[in-house]
């Protein structure tokens, strides 16, 4: 009999094998229909804004495109992550995998990495569609300007159109959209290690998503006034600590109207997102490691 090779506690190859398989599993689930929906929405809104909007159509298109990208990537991450563990356990593939020399940490990391790959791929594809539609509209707007604008102000008009189209200052915003979806997916993974059903995981993740978006407003409303009780302060601080302030990731609105995102803010929000991802993943690992399968 061959002697067992020395076991390494952590193997990137095992994690990569699990991540690749998870990505394959999710792609086969036809999740990319979601992206098709996104493409229809962006192209549809592009046509719609030509006819009915009184605002700068490129601004409106950017607003809709980035907003849709944010919602779709979150929803995609949520739906993909919520079913991963329950399905593997139900099918007993979890037992077959963990009966190999694979630690629960590697398993969980592999699964989450698979979701991360998928979301990155999805956001890249959505960005390409978005940039394509925005580019087409830009060309249409320029063509219209050439026809309708007096020659003396044409150069200025074209410059104004180009500055409202897809530019490099959109990229940090798109990265934060991706980071937000990764954060929400990690949170969903944590919930799925605790919950006994995918439905509960999805519902609780949606509730936390909403809390994450309104907690900033609630904090301002509670603490912004002159008189604040100690209980409210503790409650607010606890909520702020446990749930990420997802409103912080909504820098998209400013970017859409052409405001460049300060890099300091980008790194700050990015760092916070990564910190929450790490904390949620470690918590998920602690729960999953002690779970009876």
């Amino acid at each position, binding site marked *: 009999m061959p002697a067992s090779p020395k076991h390494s506690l952590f193997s990137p*190859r095992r994690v990569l094998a699990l991540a690749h398989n998870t990505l394959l599993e999710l792609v086969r689930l036809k999740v990319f229909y979601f992206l098709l929906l996104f493409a229809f929405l962006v192209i549809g809104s592009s046509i719609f804004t030509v006819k009915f909007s009184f605002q700068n159509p490129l601004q409106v298109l950017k607003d809709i495109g980035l907003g849709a990208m944010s919602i779709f990537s979150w929803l995609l991450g949520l739906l993909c992550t919520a079913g991963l563990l329950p399905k593997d356990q139900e099918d007993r593939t979890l037992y077959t995998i963990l009966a190999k020399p694979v630690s629960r940490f590697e398993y969980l990391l592999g699964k989450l990495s698979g979701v991360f790959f998928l979301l990155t791929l999805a956001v890249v594809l959505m960005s390409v569609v978005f940039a394509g539609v925005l580019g087409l509209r830009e060309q249409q707007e320029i063509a219209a300007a050439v026809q309708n604008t007096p020659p003396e102000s044409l150069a200025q008009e074209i410059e104004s159109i180009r500055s409202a189209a897809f530019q490099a200052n959109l990229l940090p915003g798109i990265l934060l959209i991706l980071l937000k979806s990764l954060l929400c997916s990690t949170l969903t993974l944590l919930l799925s290690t605790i919950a006994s059903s995918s439905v509960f995981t999805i519902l609780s993740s949606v509730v936390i998503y909403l809390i994450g978006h309104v907690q900033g407003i609630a904090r301002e409303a509670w603490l912004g006034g002159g008189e604040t009780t100690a209980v409210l302060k503790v409650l607010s601080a606890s909520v702020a600590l446990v749930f990420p302030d997802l409103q912080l990731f909504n820098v998209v609105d400013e970017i859409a109207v052409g405001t460049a995102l300060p890099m300091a803010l980008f790194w700050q929000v990015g760092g916070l997102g990564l910190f929450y991802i790490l904390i949620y993943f470690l918590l998920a690992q602690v729960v999953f490691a002690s779970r009876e399968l």
Partner: protein
Amino acid sequence: MSISAISIQNLSKEFHVPFRREPLRAVKNLSLEVPAGEVYGLLGPNGSGKSTTMKILLGLVSPSAGSSFLFNVNSRHVESRESVGFLPENPYFYKYLTGLETLLFFGKLCGLRGKTLQDKARLMLQTVGLADAADRRLGGYSKGMLQRIGLAQALIGEPRLLVLDEPTAGVDPAGSHEIRDLILQFKAQGITVLLCSHMLNQVQEICDRIGVMNRGELVAEGRLDELLSSPNQTELVLENASPSLLETCARLAAESGARVVENRKPHADLERFFLKITRQKP
């Protein structure tokens, strides 16, 4: 002295059931040893604690008390699984993968890669008779084929111990017979096998020793010949014996103080009969 493939010492497992004060004791103070190279049958009715014991050995469940070791490595540690191949009951794999892709995936989890992995996966497919179905998706595999691919994935890491949970459940007699032959082949290669099955005939044919669990306790254990033989009885099968010869035999037995306990026509084994008639060429 031979090394123990499985060593279980005073193992107990309690599950806390909601709305019940008393915990459910799935395994009670279980101790057993399986020497390397042996085929050991773990038997028992549903709910007797077999699956929980297996899950503890595979690190899927932690014991409430006691300990278990695989080749002297505590089964709580991941490295103990370097030596183990596991086939769960009614295995279900990723149906979007082909047979070959499935083995490549599990091979990677065992640390194999490159040409070694490719060669090993092909060899395993040949061993379990699925070489022709290597590129077919598992979604189109029959129950028996899934069971065989399950065996192949269990073997891909060259384990020293195979844990098989109902390896022939739902498989037709011909498939079941093939799996039995494979297990005997593994035994010949020196692989230790822990077999959980309700197919008692098959267990009797394959296993060197068995342990019977009931309500979480090991109620009987030993070599099959020791457990099943009746030391004061002898079986004599005669061919073309006339009634008068049988009468003479009975008389002689009575004269020497023995007794004919049973006089019956021997039955063919149903499985052998089935295989014989289904394997006949038209």
